[in-house]
């Protein structure tokens, strides 16, 4: 008590001196906390994005004919017109769209089923299942693709050996199969991560909610699909949005498979197109392609969130 008494005058002084009417510290102090992150964020996130947007409105022209001196000038939407006419780019968008329409639901359905099972008393050794599923998250995409290439290769693969032994002729790297072989690598890498997000959301639901349903005699199946799934809808939306972003960004896995399969072109995914164009020193066109990819990502993510929130009546 005496301590409080002696403190009181200092309290007032400190509160007057350091803090403003709205209760926060002075602007300089806030800046000192925020700036160490904000400065690199501006330099390595905001500036590159702005630079790419600016570049996408430039064109390289030549002073006279094909052999004239090249110079860079403002070109309006010229680069974007070229992107629209770039059939390889749109083919790559179509490819990842097909990939996403199949792979994302399959992966998230497996992740959801695993999370729901882990949330029931049906299973033993739950932590073993959780850890094995999450383990691939620790493996870089490049290494995962190298590991799976080994399993796809007709020369080395025990899977191909086993399938041939029962009379099948699998062609994981063929023109029809290679897209799905890539999809399998993504599924292997990310199912466990998504499963843990959904499982954490399930764990956060208070158990009392199920009590009434149980008293009514609802089975675990009904509780899972009619109570649990609707309750974790926000997390399902989150994992879907992350998966859409990931699909549009595909690069490392197909790039590795390209090293062993001639059925993956240098323009297999949108990012591979952007990289191939940039490697040809056409940075303005590469910038326009990157901007289009980013815009498609934003639009799809927001459209999906809007669609699901309206459906859920939120």
């Amino acid at each position, binding site marked *: 008590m005496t301590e409080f008494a002696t403190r009181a005058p200092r309290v007032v002084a400190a*509160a007057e001196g350091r803090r403003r009417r709205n209760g926060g510290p002075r602007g300089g102090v806030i800046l000192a906390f925020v700036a160490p992150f904000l400065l690199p964020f501006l330099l*390595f996130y905001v500036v590159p994005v702005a630079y790419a947007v600016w570049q996408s409105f430039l064109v390289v022209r030549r002073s006279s004919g094909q052999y004239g001196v090249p110079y860079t000038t403002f070109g309006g939407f010229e680069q974007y017109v070229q992107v629209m006419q770039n059939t390889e780019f749109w083919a790559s968008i179509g490819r990842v769209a097909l990939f996403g329409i199949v792979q994302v639901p399959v992966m998230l359905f497996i992740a959801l089923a695993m999370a729901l099972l882990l949330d029931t*008393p049906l299973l033993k050794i739950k932590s073993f299942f959780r850890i094995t599923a999450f383990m691939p*998250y620790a493996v870089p995409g490049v290494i995962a693709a190298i590991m799976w290439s080994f*399993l796809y290769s007709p020369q080395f693969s025990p899977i191909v050996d086993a399938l041939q032994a029962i009379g099948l002729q699998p062609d994981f790297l063929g023109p029809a199969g290679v897209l799905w072989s890539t999809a399998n690598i993504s599924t292997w890498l990310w199912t466990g991560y998504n499963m843990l997000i959904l499982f954490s959301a399930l764990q956060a639901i208070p158990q009392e909610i199920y009590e009434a349903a149980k008293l009514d005699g609802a089975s675990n199946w009904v509780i899972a699909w009619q109570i649990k799934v609707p309750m974790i809808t926000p997390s399902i939306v989150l994992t879907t949005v992350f998966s859409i972003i990931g699909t549009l960004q595909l690069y*490392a896995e197909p790039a590795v498979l390209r090293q062993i399969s001639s059925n993956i072109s240098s323009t297999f995914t949108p990012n591979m197109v952007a990289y191939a164009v940039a490697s040809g020193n056409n*940075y303005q066109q590469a910038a326009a392609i990157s901007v289009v990819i980013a815009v498609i990502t934003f639009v799809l993510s927001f459209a999906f969130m809007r669609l699901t929130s309206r459906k859920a009546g939120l």
Partner: protein
Amino acid sequence: MSTRAPIRESRISRTAAMALMFLLAIYFLLPIYVLIVAATKPQGDLASTFGLAFSHFDLFQNLGTLFGRSNGIYGQWAINSVIYSVFGAAVGTFISALCGYALAKFRFRGREVLFSVILGGVLVPSTALALPLFLLFSATGLVNTYLAVFLPSVVSPFGVYLARVFTAAAVPEELLESARLDGAGEFRTFFSVAFRLMVPSLVTIFLFQFVGIWNNFFLPMVMLQKESLFPITLGLYEWNGQTAKVSLLQGSVISGSLVSIIPVIILFLVLQRYWRTGIAAGALK
């Protein structure tokens, strides 16, 4: 409670659930198991023996070949990966903690706008950043240096998000208030009171960023030409591209892949609870 409904799960559904989960566990473990088996085999046995069964145990010869190849370049790649990931994640965690703390505990104008802009960064494809960054870094002479990979890796919008969520939950306002009343400045309050409470969540942020940088491929691929600066992912990618011509490299790609995933898997098993905290925070908000 005695009013529990009778247990309805028959033996069949228990068995079916266990069987399904075991199948999935095999799916997740199979590539790692095959990699381990392949890493122990002499080069000649890779194609001629069945991939699921061990043959000659040549793991140590293979590791010798791996680390001896091209004057020990693999060891250099491993060190580079550690440098990029450890320092990048350490600096990144620290600045995320400062910023996340400010966003959680200070009230200032534009706070929510700032937070939204930072969160928007999560949506920007990292590949869309790498190409313009390459041009900006070429202009400043940073391309082909450690800094070219290190500097952009430091920024983690997701880290700031986690730091804000964790701080709001783990650091009680009253503790900060009493430190301030004792006359401590904002920085002393942060370092002597808040920081200690934030440590468990900072470990989580560090882990996520560490793995993000360790697994990164596109940024170093765009930025680096000098082999001696490569992280493991880029080095193995280059080797893998040469196996068609230099078939003896196949063995080193395999043992190199195994060596590269082991430290992260260990980190991961040892620090399991921190992963779950991070993922739970991501899931709930």
